[in-house]
């Protein structure tokens, strides 16, 4: 029951938000986000009470073809549900400072997106998973299309359209793959799919049908070309949703729906994926160094980070899996913090161009401190969340192949180069006409940063509690992946 409540509350609140009119929309939306977060805390209690055995809800939905409305919460799902439930109200809160045109539509789309995302992370029936996967795409398409802030509308439409077509193209092949495995298994239930025995040839083709959908969403090199422009053109709340939560859909799906379903296909194609992922890591980092646009720099850095997570998942080791989950969670916090900082800078100076900025620290010390902590977290300084994640990821990669881990390890150095240089150029030095009157953080903005920073250190200092919760589900997935 609690599962259903958590899943459907965003939908209910999306409707309420729309009906409440433009003036109250944001308050209702925030309330909705917080209620869902509360539900999510109860979910955690329930899961712990259940000795980490999955919480399940199954109800027959369609008799022919056989599809059930099956939800499942285990440690892994809960991690991502919690990430969503925490970030969505926070993202809603970041938009409080400004007037949003047609606010009721905007906020109800955000909550609708939350509904889709929660569904993706909870579904344990392939068909249901697919529906939620697509459902999450529609709201973000409209958010990015209609509320983007850049002047060049035609360019934005093209960029967002590309994003839509790209991701939809990927998912349609996933649909084909699901239809195919349904014919083989006679069911969409995840347990039946895990126990399928497909031939190696089938698995090797199915692997790509699934992987394409996930790789585009993540994105993995060379399927990333939609990403930088989409991040840049979306309104900042949209970018946070995309980078903070939506790309985790792809990573989560790799763990839940790819590795255990077609293990032999994975075995066959792992070297290719590894190479692509590591290319992505290095390529993203190098391009990030050369970026002048703050949002694009962050987009490429995010691209590099998820490349490393993908590589970690495909090591098929305990450490790789753990690192991936920690880093998914950590990346959500860090990237939202970074994009929020970029948004604050844009609000006050009207630019994302790094070259035009400088000296903000002298006029806005609180902002400088918060931004610094988030930057350090994203370059994986010890005691921050990303350190645990990247350390485990690189360790897993080392177990898989020494050389790959050495190359991928460069990301830490390169990451430090572009992030710190960005920080230096934006925050340090002399103030100029744009930044001289930079207002420091107000309490609302400070509150967002404080919440994020608490999260950053909590995972960074005491990761063990977190890890023990996801361990059972990761063990299960690893067992099926190595069968």
């Amino acid at each position: 029951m609690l599962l259903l409540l958590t899943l459907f509350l965003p939908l209910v609140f999306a409707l309420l938000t729309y009906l409440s009119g433009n003036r109250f929309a944001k308050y209702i939306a925030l309330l909705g986000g917080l209620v869902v977060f509360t539900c999510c805390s109860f979910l955690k209690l329930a899961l712990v009470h259940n000795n980490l055995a999955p919480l399940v809800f199954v109800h027959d939905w369609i008799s022919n073809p056989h599809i059930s409305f099956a939800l499942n919460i285990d440690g892994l799902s809960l991690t991502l549900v919690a990430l969503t439930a925490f970030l969505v109200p926070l993202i809603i809160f970041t938009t409080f400072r400004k007037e949003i045109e047609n606010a009721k539509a905007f906020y109800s789309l955000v909550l609708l997106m939350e509904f889709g995302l929660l569904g993706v992370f909870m579904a344990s029936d392939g068909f249901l998973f697919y529906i939620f996967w697509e459902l999450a795409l529609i709201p973000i398409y409209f958010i990015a299309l209609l509320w983007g802030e850049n002047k060049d509308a035609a360019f934005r439409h093209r960029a967002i359209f590309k994003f839509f077509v790209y991701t939809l193209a990927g998912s349609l092949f996933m649909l084909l793959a699901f239809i195919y495995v349904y014919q083989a298994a006679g069911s969409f239930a995840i347990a039946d799919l895990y126990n399928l025995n497909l031939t190696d040839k089938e698995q090797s083709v199915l692997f790509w049908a699934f992987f394409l959908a996930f790789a585009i969403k993540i994105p993995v090199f060379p399927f990333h070309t939609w990403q930088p422009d989409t991040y840049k053109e979306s309104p900042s709340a949209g970018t946070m949703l995309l980078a903070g939560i939506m790309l985790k859909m792809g990573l989560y799906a790799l763990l839940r729906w790819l590795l255990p379903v077609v293990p032999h296909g994975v075995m066959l194609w792992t070297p290719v994926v590894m190479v692509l992922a590591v290319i992505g890591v290095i390529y993203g980092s190098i391009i990030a160094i050369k970026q002048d646009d703050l949002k694009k720099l962050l987009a490429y850095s995010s691209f590099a980070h998820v490349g490393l997570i993908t590589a970690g998942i495909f090591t098929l080791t305990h450490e790789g899996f753990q690192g991936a989950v920690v880093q998914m969670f950590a990346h959500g916090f860090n990237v939202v913090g970074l994009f929020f900082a970029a948004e604050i800078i844009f609000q006050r100076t009207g630019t994302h161009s790094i070259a035009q900025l400088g000296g903000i620290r002298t006029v806005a010390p609180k902002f400088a401190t918060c931004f610094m902590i988030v930057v350090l977290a994203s370059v994986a300084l010890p005691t921050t969340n990303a350190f645990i994640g990247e350390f485990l990821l690189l360790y897993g990669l080392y177990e898989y192949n020494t050389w790959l881990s050495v190359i991928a390890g460069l990301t830490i150095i390169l990451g430090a180069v572009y992030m710190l240089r960005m920080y230096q150029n934006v925050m340090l030095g002399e103030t100029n006409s744009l930044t001289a009157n930079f207002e420091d953080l107000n309490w609302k903005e400070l509150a967002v940063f404080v919440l994020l920073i608490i999260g950053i250190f909590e995972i960074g200092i005491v990761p063990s509690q977190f890890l023990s919760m996801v361990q059972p589900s990761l063990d299960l997935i690893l067992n099926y992946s190595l069968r």
Partner: protein
Amino acid sequence: MNTLIYTSALGLLCMLAEMANLRKLILPIAVAGLCVIFGLNITDWGKNTTYYHNMVLTDNFSVAFSGLLLMLGVFITLLAGNFYKNEESKISDYLAIIIFTLCGALALVSFGNMAMFFLGIEVLSISLYILAGSKKKDVRSNEAGMKYFLMGSFASGILLFGIALIYGETGSFDLGVISNYASATHPTVLFYAGAGMILISMLFKVSAAPFHFWAPDVYEGSPTLTTAMMATIAKIAAFAAFYRLFSHAFISVFPPYAWVFSAVTALTITVGNFTALNQDSFKRMLAFSGISHAGYLMLGIISLYGKTDNAIFFYSFAYGISSMAAFAIAIVVAMNLGSEKIEAFNGLGKRKPFLAAALTIAMLSMAGIPPLAGFFGKYYIFSEAIRNGHLWLTVLAVINSIVSVYYYLKVVLAMYTKESPETAFTLKPAYSFVIGFCILLLFLAGIFPGLLTGLL
């Protein structure tokens, strides 16, 4: 059977009402009549009877499709009231012809005999020829009527020739007899030639490539309400007849023609889609997208070995309902702005959020985005095609689905991101009702597809 009789009677009543000077009442009578017939139709569920020596078969297939067609007929009738408001003196004629079109369609989903089948096709087509050319002073409507008539009668000729050949070989018009003959003996080349001719005329009627050339011009030139009938009622009835004919009578001639079916399917989906990309008239775009939808339905036809009637029904339902919503909105926009171009939709999101949202949902359903009915329809058709071993055709269909997003979203983009001058905009309650009801059905069938999947 009863459905067909009552509907014909209602058509006659409409014509008589004209004489009795009941013009004002005729629309409510027609709508109420069709609703009652819809209800009576449902009571035939599960009856499986035949009438007049197998002339008409009433089974679940015919009841389900009749229900869908009657529902679409109610929508069309509701829209007709306002659509023909400038020609109020002729409203009873128009309504009578619309209802006769429906009779033809009903005959097409319930025939058990080639004679009945031909009769259905002709009643449907002749009514539509008249409606297509019904704007006497509009050159394009004249052209559409003429073109449709010439091409249609040509196809009917081929159909009749095919039926004659089949009769010459089997000595019967009865589907059951034909089927028994074909499976018991080795049919000669005459039989195959006859079946091939019937196939060609059916492909023409459902506007499958390469027999689709008439469709865009006819769709564009005809009055929009008539276009809506061609795209929904006529196409769905033709597909139901297509399925019935080939699954009842010609299943044994299927193998030699399998490659024809595959080629036609691939061609129809692709040609329809890629031509739709560059259209700037909304009606023309819908015409081409309708061709590609015919291609998806063909995927169901080529898998008919595996009993795909339910998938075809579901897809027809989703396609018919979303088309109906799209055409209704197109009529409203054309009435207010006098244009059928996609540009006419500019800024609709600000002016009429309800219409814009409804059209967005209709377009997303056609593009196959969950949780709308169109998605489940596509899923169902694809999954039946894969089950019957048409993997590569399905892959092609999937690629085409991706392409189709481009033109469906073009309208959505126009509505939400382009600006337009403020003009007065009126929306009649009948239109709001039809559009709202269609959207509701799209959600309902998308979220609870089980309501329709277990039917046949």
